């Protein structure tokens, strides 16, 4: 048995086990499973030498077709049941297209499973970060008011999700990819609608129909691919690609945009906030949306010239626009959501550029983004559960109550902005690649501008949150509020991952050692100083308030985003995509 089969099969089994047991046993099992999965994914790296290739037996193909049919019919049924015409239409559309695909039988056969470096990296993220989130979810779900079975089902679903994700990054067959794509849609549909109230159901449906657009796009791509290249395999498709017939690639890219919740498909990811926080965490960091950059990376070798440029521009535009839109938000998770969308845009842009440097940058960003976002979402959950806070405006002076959470939040945001963390490295490398790209094609200047503006907006955005944490008066006393170990330990683990990540980027020499060590030192020295120097002896006085003594009311500036801007941005994005398709068609 190869590792990948274990990675795919084991979580399925875990899901079943977790389903049946009681709390304590379930927790023990789940933790054990997570540890196991992590080890597996790590060992995969060490075992890994050359790409693994496997052709699955015919039986599996039939099974998958059956499953696919079931999933699509389920969607249709859901559409009928909830009377949501969009869901219905897209489900029907998919069924029709799927039938067409099945009728056209491809001739060029290749491996169904192909595991390369990128997959191995994805394994790491999915299993380790995802696993950590599951551990966190164990406690989180206990604080909700659901039946025992439903709670267990939740954990099981998460494991199932991991399995699907593990598979999706190993497959080479676009048909299987389509199935798994639909399965993730299904998972997210169930998880988002998990709470079962009106809002959840609505948002789940939104996620459903939007993700089905991705399915449609994949199917269209499949059809074009079969018609022109007679294959349903990524590697064959990419190897035989004809620079004048990129339609399948473009449609796959659009599917990626849908999964990556790029503008204008951003609604579903934001709607997903309604679900329990671990769901958001897992969607944003380890699973689901990560399909988008992964797919792009897979397609990268096939892209060139116009397509590469347009997707880069689109990606950077999304980066810019999403961070702009996020400025108008107040809800903590929503801010995180938009920043995910933005960074996904950047990842896809980087993947589309496709130079080796860009791909390294993209991978770094994927890894670090997963860790940081997971960390931040866990904190969002803690804020919700332990402090009953949701809006950034309310987290005034959190540092007085829980320095630990504040520390985590700050580390989370810092790791997305400042050197020497991976997100920074990626941004840095992105600028470098784009800069060298401009020499070839001046239109990349716009990508640069979007990137520069977007990163400035993102910084601004992170401050929107960080601002409020610190506020401390001369007189306020610090009251420590205890937080459950189940919450803090996953955070610590993620923190360790971050450090490991920095170490690895140090090893890989993504930046010169000086460039990593110095800022790391600078950043790390601050909490140390916090801990060591308390200025016990220094005299303290009140803040200057014009000599007055009444209470001060503080707030970060807020940015009102008129809906016109939102509409304009969506229109620009749609137009961009149309240009992409039209340009390829012509």
């Amino acid at each position, binding site marked *: 048995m190869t590792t990948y089969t274990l990675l795919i099969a084991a979580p399925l089994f875990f899901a079943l086990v977790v389903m049946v047991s009681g709390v304590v046993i379930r927790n023990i099992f789940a933790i054990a499973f997570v540890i196991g999965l992590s080890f597996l994914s790590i060992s995969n790296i060490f075992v890994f030498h050359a790409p693994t290739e496997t052709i699955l037996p015919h039986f599996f193909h039939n099974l998958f077709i059956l499953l696919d049919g079931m999933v699509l019919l389920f969607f249709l049924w859901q559409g009928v049941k909830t009377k949501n015409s969009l869901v219905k239409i897209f489900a029907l559309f998919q069924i029709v297209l799927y039938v067409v695909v099945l009728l056209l039988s491809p001739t060029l056969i290749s491996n169904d499973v192909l595991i390369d470096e990128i997959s191995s990296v994805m394994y790491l993220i999915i299993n380790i970060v995802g696993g950590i989130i599951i551990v966190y979810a164990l406690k989180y779900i206990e604080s909700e008011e659901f039946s025992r079975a439903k709670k267990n089902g939740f954990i099981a679903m998460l494991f199932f999700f991991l399995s699907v994700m593990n598979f999706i990054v190993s497959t080479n067959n676009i048909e299987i990819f389509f199935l798994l794509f639909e399965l993730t849609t299904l998972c997210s549909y169930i998880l988002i609608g998990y709470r079962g109230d009106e809002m959840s159901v609505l948002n789940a449906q939104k996620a459903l129909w939007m993700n089905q657009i991705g399915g449609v796009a994949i199917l269209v791509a499949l059809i074009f691919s079969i018609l022109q290249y007679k294959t349903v395999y990524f590697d064959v498709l990419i190897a035989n690609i004809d620079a004048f017939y990129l339609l399948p690639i473009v449609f796959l890219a659009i599917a990626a945009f849908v999964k990556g919740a790029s503008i204008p498909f951003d609604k579903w990811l934001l709607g997903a906030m309604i679900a329990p926080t671990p769901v958001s965490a897992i969607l944003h960091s380890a699973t689901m949306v990560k399909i988008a950059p992964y797919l792009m990376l897979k397609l990268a070798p096939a892209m060139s010239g116009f397509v590469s440029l347009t997707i880069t521009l689109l990606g950077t535009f999304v980066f810019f626009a999403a961070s702009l839109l996020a400025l108008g938000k107040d809800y903590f998770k929503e801010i995180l959501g938009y920043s995910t969308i933005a960074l996904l845009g950047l990842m896809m842009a980087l993947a589309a550029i496709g130079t080796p440097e860009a791909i390294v940058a993209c991978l770094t960003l994927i890894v670090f983004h997963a860790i940081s976002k997971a960390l931040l979402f866990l904190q969002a959950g803690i804020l919700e559960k332990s402090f009953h806070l949701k809006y950034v405006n309310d987290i005034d*002076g959190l*540092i007085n109550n829980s320095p630990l959470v504040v520390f985590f939040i700050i580390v989370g945001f810092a790791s997305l*902005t*400042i*050197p020497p963390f991976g997100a920074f490295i990626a941004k*840095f490398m992105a*600028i*470098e690649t784009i*800069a*060298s790209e*401009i*020499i070839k*094609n*001046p239109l990349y*200047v*716009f990508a*640069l*501008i979007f*990137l*520069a*503006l977007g*990163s*400035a*907006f993102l*910084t*601004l955005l992170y*401050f929107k949150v*960080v*601002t*409020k944490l*610190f*506020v*401390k*008066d*001369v007189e306020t006393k610090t009251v420590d509020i205890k937080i459950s170990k189940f919450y803090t330990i996953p955070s610590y683990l993620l923190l360790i991952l971050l450090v490991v990540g920095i170490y690895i980027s140090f090893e890989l020499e993504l*930046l*010169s050692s*000086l*460039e990593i060590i*110095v*800022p790391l030192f*600078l*950043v790390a*020295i*601050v909490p140390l*100083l*916090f801990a060591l120097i*308390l*200025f016990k002896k*220094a*005299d*303290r*006085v009140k*803040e*200057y*308030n014009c000599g007055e003594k009444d209470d*001060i009311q*503080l707030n*970060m*500036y807020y940015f009102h985003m008129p809906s016109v801007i939102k509409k304009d941005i969506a229109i620009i994005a749609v137009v961009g995509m149309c240009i992409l398709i039209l340009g390829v068609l012509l």
Partner: protein
Amino acid sequence: MIEILLILFAPIIGGFIYGFERVVRARMQNRQGPPLLQPFYDMFKLIDKQAFIVNPYHTILGIMHFITLWVVVAFIIMGQNLLYVIFLHLLSSIFLILAGFSVKSIYSHIGSNRELLAALAYEPILIMIAVGFFMVNGSFDIAVIREHDASIASLFLLFLAYLMVMPIKLKKSPFDATEAHQEIVGGVEIEFSGIFFEFLYMAKWLEYIFVYLLLMLFAGDNIFLGIGLFIGVFLLLNLIDNATARIKMKHLIKIVLSLGLTLGMCNLIGLAYV
């Protein structure tokens, strides 16, 4: 060796520039002005004074701002990657902004907010300048840029854009809304006192060094051109400082961002075609 000396004495050189500028400004306003060494007198006085703190974070972040800025200057002098330097400089601003946010003082808060918005305005332009240097010299390394010929001719539009960034960083009108003594009493620095304020005060000197070192990059390996640029821009900045009022944050962002980005874009596209 000389580099190490330069790094060590960077704040002092900055202090001289600052002191000289105060004299020049006074003269431009028809006044006698303080002595040239005034910044150092201030420094010694501040060291000697009682220091109040509001909370420890505030103080530490303020000190970190100074240290990081020093590191930035050191990196420039050592000829590191320009893009990296710009980001590191952003880190130093971030420390300052966080410091401003960490106290419960309204003016400090507004100052931080404005500082943040100002960073929004000048960061993209600085990045474009770095890219411009890359396109001319084929490298982001400052050491390489210093060895090449003066790039001011090919980067002239970006140079103009940089001229707009300088007053923001040096807190000079018309773009000094972040400090705005008459509105928010100095903004971020308001709650610092005594020796802790001293760090911020010296950070200002380092800011001078940072800004003018970046300016000198436009002159490449031509030292005389560099000095000429320094003197010319120094005079120009002070003249403009004395001929304009402070404009609002809103206008600042609009002007700097739109004008700066257009200039930068034209320049980069032009470079790509040439």
